């Protein structure tokens, strides 16, 4: 199924601990178009994961409204796929079993999805590993299996919370390329959380740059680079400019500092 719109209207989150309240996210307004690849980039602790969980209905918004395909989010949304930073596969199931559990939990006939699961696993380079257990796989392969699990029920929305954050640079690059190809083929609405400026700019149609304490969207950038961006988009002037803009914004906000504070003397 191709993408549906996601709308956040003054969606905010405050955490209450005893008498103390922490403003995790100031009211946020975003309209994500159907089939858009939307990236959120920001430093640790800026509330970007909380934002994703609010969209998924896993964490309730304190105020404001979130709607997916026009329907207000009030409980965990089931019409989506989620990928986390760690693959969170079930240790006791094979790769294929881990993909099919998505359907079993939904009460669907898992067996009828098996050919589709095998095709998707093949597409992400896991052919021949269908019957292996997670502990037998590398980190990159586990994350590929997790991505297939998030796609097998063909949801219109894909939520990804730093999905490549725990991978080595080369695997990360490969998975980024694979994800772009998958997205181009299916045109799902993707919300992609990352702290890599590069990754956000290379993948997304729009990038929301967040800053911390309190978490807010500092700037919303439209990335107007041709697709598929592949490996060559890094050389385009447009890419360099956007990355510079975001880097400068982080410098202004003190998220990055040109002269390191640490003296190693």
């Amino acid at each position, binding site marked *: 199924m191709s993408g549906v719109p996601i709308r956040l209207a003054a969606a905010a989150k405050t955490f209450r601990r005893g008498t103390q309240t922490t403003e995790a996210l100031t009211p946020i307004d975003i309209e994500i178009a159907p089939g858009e690849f939307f990236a959120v980039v920001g430093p640790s602790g800026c509330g970007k994961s909380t934002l994703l969980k609010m969209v*998924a209905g*896993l964490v309730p918004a304190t105020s404001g409204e979130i709607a997916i395909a026009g329907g207000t989010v009030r409980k*965990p949304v089931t019409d989506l796929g*989620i990928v986390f930073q*760690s693959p969170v596969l079930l240790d006791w199931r094979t790769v294929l079993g881990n993909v099919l559990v998505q359907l*079993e*939990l939904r009460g669907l006939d898992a067996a009828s999805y098996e050919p589709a699961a095998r095709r998707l696993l093949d597409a992400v380079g896991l052919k021949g590993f269908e019957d292996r*257990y997670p*502990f*037998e796989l590398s980190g990159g392969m586990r994350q590929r299996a997790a991505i297939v699990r998030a796609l097998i029920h063909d949801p219109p929305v894909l939520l990804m919370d730093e999905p490549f954050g725990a991978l080595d640079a080369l695997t990360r690059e490969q998975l980024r390329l694979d994800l772009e190809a998958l997205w181009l083929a299916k045109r799902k609405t993707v919300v992609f959380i990352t702290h890599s400026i590069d990754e956000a700019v290379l993948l997304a149609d729009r990038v929301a740059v967040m800053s911390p304490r309190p978490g807010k969207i500092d700037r919303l950038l439209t990335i107007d680079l041709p697709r598929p961006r592949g490996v060559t988009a890094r050389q385009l002037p447009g890419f360099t400019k956007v990355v510079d803009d975001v880097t400068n914004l982080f410098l202004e906000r003190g998220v990055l500092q040109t002269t390191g504070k640490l003296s190693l003397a």
Partner: protein
Amino acid sequence: MARIRSVAQPLLLALAVLVLWEAAVRLFDVPNYLLPAPTAILADLARRWPRILGGAWITGLEILGGFGMAVVISLPLATGIAFSAWMARTIYPLIVAFQVVPKIAIAPIFVIWFGIGWISKLTLVFLLCFFPMLVNNVAGFRGINPEIMDFARSTGANSWRLFWRIRLPSALPSIFTGLRIGAVNAVTGAVVAEFIASDRGLGYLLLEYNGNLLASAVFATVFVLSAIGLSIYYAVEGIERLAIPWHTAQRQSEKVGEQT
């Protein structure tokens, strides 16, 4: 090859210790009532076999009975505690508090309550198994990765499916840890219960042999007791291998990783 070695090496070491033991006893002429030689123990075991076997049957049943009761009661109770906030608030703190009561200290009262028959034995074995099992079961259910639960909630699965497909399998490694601790405790529980008051079983035999300074008979009985304990322990481990191969396999591969 590695498998053969992992069995053979400890066996060889045990054999070497036995040979040294035998040699030392003969060389220094240690009196039998202090430390009998392994061959003397073996001879005694053969001579008293019918009686020791009869005792082993009784004690074995006490162990299995108490252990089984602990499994049957601790699992549903732990499930309740893990998934009901009300039970976690009310029952669990009491159970944790009761856990620190030395069960062996209150065991004599069981004799007053239940007599010297089966029930007082089963009660002590049960109590010694129950607490480590319950605590490990609860920890297993609670220790689930929160992101796995986030994923599971995003599927809209009902509690029944969540329990059988996610929560129970992920708790199994911890549940088996409790079972293994319980298997060891059960043997201690049965013998101690028989020490306190009994007219049969291996614990009773031990007291009788010890009272008559029959050291080799005492050792023979301890040997049989250990054999019972070991078989239960390995039975649990065998079931664990069958039930959660992914977990034991993971442990094996970690071990290999440590060696290289």
